[in-house]
């Protein structure tokens, strides 16, 4: 079921206002950095998709090309996302770099859950494992695990920054997606360190709620990955992403009273309440 809802003029104006706030952040970023010092993270999901669409608007306005865009290949991708990304890359002329940690993929023989032996990895990856305090000899290859996440995403992200001398990187994060994001700033400077290049993270769509986001997609006919029509609300790795409500498109679900990251700690509130009643601390 395609996203062909009618959005009222009033709501459309509200969404336009939210976009304007985002565009202002993007413009500030272009004032602060040269276009070649900027980068974009894209996943093919709804948040980075909206971010990319907004940055593209500003670039068209300024008549400059889109900054270098990265997409991470975790080795566990949805075919639907790959197809969507391929399509948009052509339509929007996105200067896309597909970034993968080939060394880890090779050590895992490109198989999910295969055991990766630390001694089979290259020096950089071994050093990265020491950096995060991993002290094991092997780990299962899963993109969403602590180690997998670091090697397949963080390391690849840092290498993209290093390789392209990126100083400012756009991210499609939103305040309402996770409690740990509540205080995220629009611009966050990250100090450099061992294996970590200094950079600024730029988050233009922080203020969009999930509902704002889908209304904006509908109001401005922004393309999106068709998996959201099947009931996915949050897309990550293929084998760990869950459909929230089967057959109900993401935008038709109860966005305000249910968790966006489905399957995560559904009983947490109840447990919290029980702990509170214990009367400790």
């Amino acid at each position, binding site marked *: 079921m395609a996203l062909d809802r009618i959005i009222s003029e009033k709501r459309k104006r509200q969404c336009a206002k939210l976009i304007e706030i985002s565009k202002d952040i993007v413009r500030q970023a272009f004032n602060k950095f040269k276009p070649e010092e900027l980068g974009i993270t894209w996943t093919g999901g709804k948040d980075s998709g909206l971010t990319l669409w907004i940055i593209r608007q500003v670039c068209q306005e300024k008549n400059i090309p889109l900054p270098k865009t990265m997409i991470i290949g975790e080795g566990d991708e949805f075919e639907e996302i790959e197809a969507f990304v391929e399509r948009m890359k052509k339509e929007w002329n996105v200067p896309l770099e597909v970034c993968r940690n080939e060394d880890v993929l090779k050590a895992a023989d490109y198989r999910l859950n295969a055991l990766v032996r630390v001694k089979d990895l290259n020096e950089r990856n071994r050093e990265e494992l020491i950096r995060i305090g991993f002290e*094991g000899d092997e780990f299962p290859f*899963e993109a969403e*695990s602590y180690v997998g996440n670091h090697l397949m995403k963080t390391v690849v992200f840092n290498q993209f920054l290093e390789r392209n001398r990126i100083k400012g990187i756009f991210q499609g994060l939103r305040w309402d997606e996770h409690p*740990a994001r509540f205080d995220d700033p629009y611009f966050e400077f990250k100090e450099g360190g061992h294996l970590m290049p200094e950079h600024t993270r730029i988050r233009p769509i922080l203020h969009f709620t999930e509902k704002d986001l889908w209304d904006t997609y509908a109001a401005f006919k922004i393309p999106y990955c068709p998996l959201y029509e099947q009931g996915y609300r949050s897309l990550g790795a293929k084998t760990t992403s869950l459909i929230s409500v089967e057959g109900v498109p993401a935008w038709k679900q109860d966005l305000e009273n249910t968790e966006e990251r489905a399957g995560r700690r559904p009983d947490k509130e109840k447990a919290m309440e029980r702990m509170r009643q214990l*009367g*400790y601390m």
Partner: protein
Amino acid sequence: MAEIISPGCQRGIPGNVEMPLSVERLPNGNTLIADGGDEAGFGSEIVEIDHLGNIVWNYNEGLRFAHSGRRLKNGNTLITDTTNNRLIEVTPDKKIVMNSDEWGSGTGKLSDGSHLHYPNEAFELEDGTFLVTDRNNDRCIQVDRNGKVIWAFERELKHPHNANALPNGNFLISDSDRNRILEINREKEIIWSYGDGSIETLWWPRSAIRLKNGNTMITDSRNHRIIEVSPEGKFIWMFQTEYVDKFYITHATKEGTFLIACSGYHQVVEVDLAGNIVWLFRNYRRPTPIYTRLTNGFFKEVGADRYPLHWVLARRLSEGGGKVIWDNENKPYPCPGLEFDRPGALFLQQDIAVKPGSTYRIGGDIKTIDVKGEACLMVDFFDSYGASLYRDISLMPSGEFFTGTNGWTHDIFDVRVPPRATYAELRLSINNSGKVFVRNIMMNPI
């Protein structure tokens, strides 16, 4: 090689006041403090200090998380030895002259067949009997020195922490978990109350005293304030700290100032009615090291005490239960866990220096067996005074909650370091009974 920012001092040093839980100004001008001790369960004692902060007397033999020390008319000191579930009276030369463990022919039972359970407060009444706040039995009782129950108020309370007698013969009770203060007469009728149950009005009030002007001064613990209300329930005055500091007990001095036991900031303050701090006692030294980063998260190193090296078993809140266990079957090497068997909470934890504003990713594998409450990884953040930034445990960031039996599960969560935080305390936590094991813990800025 462990990198340590603060090494921490020896645990249980006599006179080192780690967690003031009750306080009173004695007729001679000295101040009597009940110190609950450190997070590992060491150092609980009763300390008497002079106005310069010199320690003139202390008692620390066998106390576990003692919540109150009260000087009696005969010069002895009455102590609620909370985790030991007992009430003792000690002489100035530290001899125990009364011990509730000896009641009921050595069973520790009272005349009604019950046993004190986590007593928090005890005062001497005019007739020489004691008014005891018996927290986990949800009651306040009057007992004599032989354990005979003379009077009891056992209805309607949920974890009361303090009850004291008023000149009119009534009792003022802090019904902490119900967020209210009650005045009860001897017929057990509620004569007066304050608190509508909402946490905005009172949040976990731990003590209340009636002032000479007829108003009531309430220690509103989780709202880090003391609040004066009139008999009509009208707000009159308050003293509140800018930041979270859980106040436990407030004592009114003859001079019209108030002494407050500040458990979070590890200090006792005396404030006047203008909110000035006119006296302060703090000699806290941290017993726990602070590491530059998570250390021994894979538990390869084991200490001489058979605890994982660099990790602390925090049993201050464990009500006397719980221990570290090992899963020796785990490959490639054994991993630790916690076993717990009662209400309360038990933690295996480590303190790590952090920078406000940064985001950390925390992850590890957890396995549980028959957990009746909850087990999880949790992070508490502390400020430069060593006080938790959170008013309540349920507000602390945590990973997934595990109940019942679960095989190894990988848990991963992100936390943003709040403003003013100087270090994080990463915990494996369990409450109620069961076993939880943990392995491969990592924590890094992202």
